[in-house]
């Protein structure tokens, strides 16, 4: 694969399919730069790099020199009924142009109503009407960034009585209509399956795995619901749970090696601990890679 050159800047073009990566946290920069990092890529939340300059961009530029970068938006509010924030879309597209990420992704969720930003990934009902607005919004994002994006399945705590589609049917139909790829968050599948009492394996067998261009893994926390039953919280504050590793193993067995991110966004550990989590994902992929080596499936996003 050729490097990408924009103006005088050269971006090493690394393929990320089949590689495991980690969230990039600024406090890890020194450890990463001084010791080198055995990871396939780094991923960042786009909004943290929407300032004009300063240390955040200096750090990200440094990382981008040596590693592929994946850009993950968390605030686009694709799942809400109101039009996308044009300024935010412009900032997002500018960041895609500035860093030439290997993968660009966003969430099936919303976070803004009127002009209030709620800073959480809020849920939506799965109806014909919401399907239309989500697809329109994804069309708009893809045309602004001039490339396909991946859409991430949500983790949820409530369901909407008015939903007409299953989550997997809803997501499959979005991919079909918009041509977007999918980001399968295996922890989100496990969290939602536990919270809503469905089978994570059934969900995975209904999920359109052929569109998956990236996988997310993360830790979750345990609480209880109104009836005292287990309620899992998508907290990203600890290691990946054993049950989620098992599901991941099954997913990779079915669809072959896919770029896999270990997310860790709160109670962030030393770099070596996060790197070990990414290593664990790489080991699982490598174990399956022989079966996919010839004529195997490749990730849709590259």
């Amino acid at each position, binding site marked *: 694969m050729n490097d990408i050159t924009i103006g005088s800047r050269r971006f090493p073009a690394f393929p990320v399919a089949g590689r495991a990566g980690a969230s990039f946290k600024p406090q890890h920069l020194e450890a990463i730069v001084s010791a080198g990092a055995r990871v396939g890529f780094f991923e960042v939340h786009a909004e943290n790099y929407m300032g004009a300059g300063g240390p955040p961009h200096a750090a990200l530029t440094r990382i981008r020199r040596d590693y592929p970068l994946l850009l993950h938006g968390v605030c686009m509010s694709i799942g809400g009924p109101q039009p996308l924030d044009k300024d935010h879309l412009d900032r997002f597209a500018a960041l895609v142009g500035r860093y030439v990420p290997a993968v660009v992704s966003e969430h099936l969720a919303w976070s803004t109503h009127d002009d209030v930003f709620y800073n959480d990934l809020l849920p939506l009902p799965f109806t014909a009407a919401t399907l239309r607005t989500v697809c329109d919004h994804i069309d708009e994002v893809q045309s602004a960034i001039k490339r396909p994006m991946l859409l991430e399945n949500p983790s949820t705590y409530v369901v909407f009585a008015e939903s007409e589609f299953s989550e997997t049917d809803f997501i499959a139909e979005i991919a079909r209509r918009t041509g977007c790829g999918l980001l399968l968050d295996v922890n989100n599948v496990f969290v939602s399956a536990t919270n809503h009492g469905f089978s994570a394996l059934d969900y995975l067998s209904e999920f359109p795995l052929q569109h998956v261009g990236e996988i997310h893994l993360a830790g979750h926390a345990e*609480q209880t619901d109104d009836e005292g039953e287990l309620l899992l919280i998508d907290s990203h504050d600890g290691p990946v749970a054993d049950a989620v590793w098992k599901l991941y193993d099954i997913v990779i067995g079915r669809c072959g090696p896919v770029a896999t991110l270990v997310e860790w966004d709160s109670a962030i550990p030393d770099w070596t601990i996060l790197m070990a989590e990414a290593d664990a994902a790489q080991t699982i992929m490598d174990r399956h890679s022989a079966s996919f080596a010839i004529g195997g499936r490749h990730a849709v996003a590259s």
Partner: protein
Amino acid sequence: MPLPHRPEGPRNDFTGRFCAPLLDPERPTPRDVTGPRSKAADKRYDVYRNNVTVSLIDTLGETYPAVQRIVGRTFFRDMARIFVRAEPPRSPLLFEYGRGFSAFIDDFEHTASMPWLGDVARIERAWLDAYHAADAPPLAPETLANVPAESLSTMVFTPHPAMRVVRSAYPAVTIFAANRQSGPVGKILERGGEDALVTRPHLELFVRKLPPGGAVFLVALCGGRTLGEAAAEALDREPRFDLGANIAAMLEAGAFTAVEAANC
């Protein structure tokens, strides 16, 4: 101030119904959400209330660490919760959130005994703005040295994108500095006002205490006044104003990026 009440909207406006109670603990769980098999969803919906409120309080804690250290974590989080509910963010860029926090602190009755606290928050806000500001090389001292002496008073300066001046009637810079370092904070003996100059000439942030008249001088320069006009204004307000020392200090701090003759 609670968010405006939005009655049940059109069917597709599930967001309006969903978000109204997020920052208003008095409102019940929206009627259109449930647990699986129509289970109750109060604790489930509370996860969203908690995510929104706690993440925004955390954001304020990250932006205002000195304020948090001064008032203590529990007090800070209680104060921040009131602010979050009254002034939620209007932008998805969280580093922009909380511009109203210093004014809120000024008016907060439980911090009335610390009248300087709002100014400490203003310096912390300026610090974060400088952190994210556009990169630009600071004005090199030689550039100014090459300006003929007779033209100096007619020169105008371009402020560095990261440069901020915060004025205070209290020793806010000393209090800020004492509470942004990790060591113990001794008794603050300073009295009287202190003005802060925040700069980030390259990647490192600097917060300096300005000499007498320095703030008037820099604010005038930022407003497009010539060096002569800004110096006259500073001297008029502060007889102790020392022009040479202030020029040297502003160059060293990297407060400006360019100098040129006025009207060219």
